[in-house]
């Protein structure tokens, strides 16, 4: 187990393995996303309350789920980097941030598009939306702090510490926003009920979530490969790479 861990942690080894593994994530991701799209848009029946607007759930929920999952992944990678000074962990945390920010943006944007027909407004100070917005700012802070350092090693470590502080704070933020929201429940807007999902509605959602996860894995690998190259400039193993990369 440990030798495996060490081996994967070595940049040249990771670079080689990830190059070979990447298509095994990307291709199933594309297949599942296509399947989920067809299933979500055509095969699943319209919701009896929301009609066809509920179909946005198939792109909204996976994005919101990934927004959180990627942040946790980033914080775990950051913690591993801080504790074991592992270059690959810092590279992963750095690679997670822009992808996570993109998922968070998607969760907010699709939520807003969903909100317009359902609530009549583009934005509602709903507890969930507000905490996702804060999550978006946490991603921005991580990226801004990391790029503010001239020395990338320092930037990595500082941003990693920030990610850890953020992940401790997220449950508190979530709790506070929920508490705030229950005090100010706007009565005029009809709440969005979590639709009681039947099997034929749920299946495309699960397919989409798995598709998003695999896509995240594939994109993450490509980004980590880039980060590894940037961090290992001039190392012998890079000069020995075949021109095909």
């Amino acid at each position, binding site marked *: 187990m440990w030798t495996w861990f060490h081996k994967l942690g070595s940049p040249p080894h990771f670079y080689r393995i990830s190059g070979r593994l990447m298509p095994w994530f990307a291709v199933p991701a594309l297949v599942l996303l296509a399947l989920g799209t067809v299933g979500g848009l055509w095969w699943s029946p319209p919701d009896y309350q929301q009609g066809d607007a509920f179909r946005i759930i198939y792109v909204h929920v996976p994005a919101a789920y990934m927004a959180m999952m990627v942040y946790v992944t980033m914080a775990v990678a950051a913690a591993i980097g801080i504790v074991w000074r592992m270059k690959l962990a810092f590279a992963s945390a750095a690679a997670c941030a822009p992808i996570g920010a993109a998922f968070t943006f998607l969760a907010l944007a699709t939520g807003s598009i969903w909100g317009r027909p359902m609530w009549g407004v583009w934005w509602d100070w709903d507890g969930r939306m507000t905490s996702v917005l804060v999550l978006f700012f946490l991603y921005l802070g991580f990226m801004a*702090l990391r790029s503010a350092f001239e020395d990338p090693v320092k930037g990595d470590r500082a941003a990693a*510490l920030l990610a850890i502080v953020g992940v401790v704070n997220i449950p508190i933020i979530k709790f*506070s926003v929920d508490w705030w929201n229950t005090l100010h429940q706007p009565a005029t807007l009809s709440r969005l009920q979590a639709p009681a999902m039947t099997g034929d509605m749920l299946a495309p959602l699960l397919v989409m979530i798995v598709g998003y996860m695999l896509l995240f894995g594939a994109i993450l690998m490509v980004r980590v490969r880039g980060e590894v190259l940037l961090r290992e400039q001039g190392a012998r193993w890079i000069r020995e790479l075949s021109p095909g990369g």
Partner: protein
Amino acid sequence: MSVTAALGAVLRREFALAGRRVGELGLPLVFFLLVATLFPLGLMPERELLVAIGPGVLWVAALLASLLALDALFRADVDDGSLEQLVMSPYPLPLLVLAKAGAHWMLTGLPLVVISPLVAQAYYLPADAAWALLATLLIATPTLTLLGGVAAALTAGLRRGAALLGLLVLPLALPLLVFGARATELAAAGEPIAGPLYLLGAMLALAVTLTPWAMAAALRISLD
């Protein structure tokens, strides 16, 4: 020198330095008063409106004023190299930075807390709400200083760190604003506020126990 003596030395130094630049010290306080003045001017000085927005506005003003002061927490000490001495000293760094943050709060946070009931009068807040504002600020501003201290320590080595500070601190400080402003509002409506006060207290306890370590680690990274 024992650890307590070292802590005393840190505190004495902070107060002595603060005594030499009193003008700079008053700046966050003036900023707080200014922001509080701007809202009635920008909106309408009607009694009902001010009572309705008062708790939120005063809390946001206090938050921004504390943010303004935060950059000074480590900046000067980084520039003159005394922070490096602190890091290299044989005493536990988390305790030393806790003392530093404590001194910073007494010098910038406490004046704000003390003056807040007076400003609350200008917003026609009832006495209960004014006291609630004082109580919530008293419990929450130390937490804010500690949380902000982590961000200040992370950006201490950066030339343009002050601009980053807001982006790093404000999302993390959001729970303080929520509970603090809401508690003040509840008090204005004559409702009990023990719940949010306990929660703010819990956050302070959490911050006191965890952030000194984060601050120490952040300083080690910044000065590395």
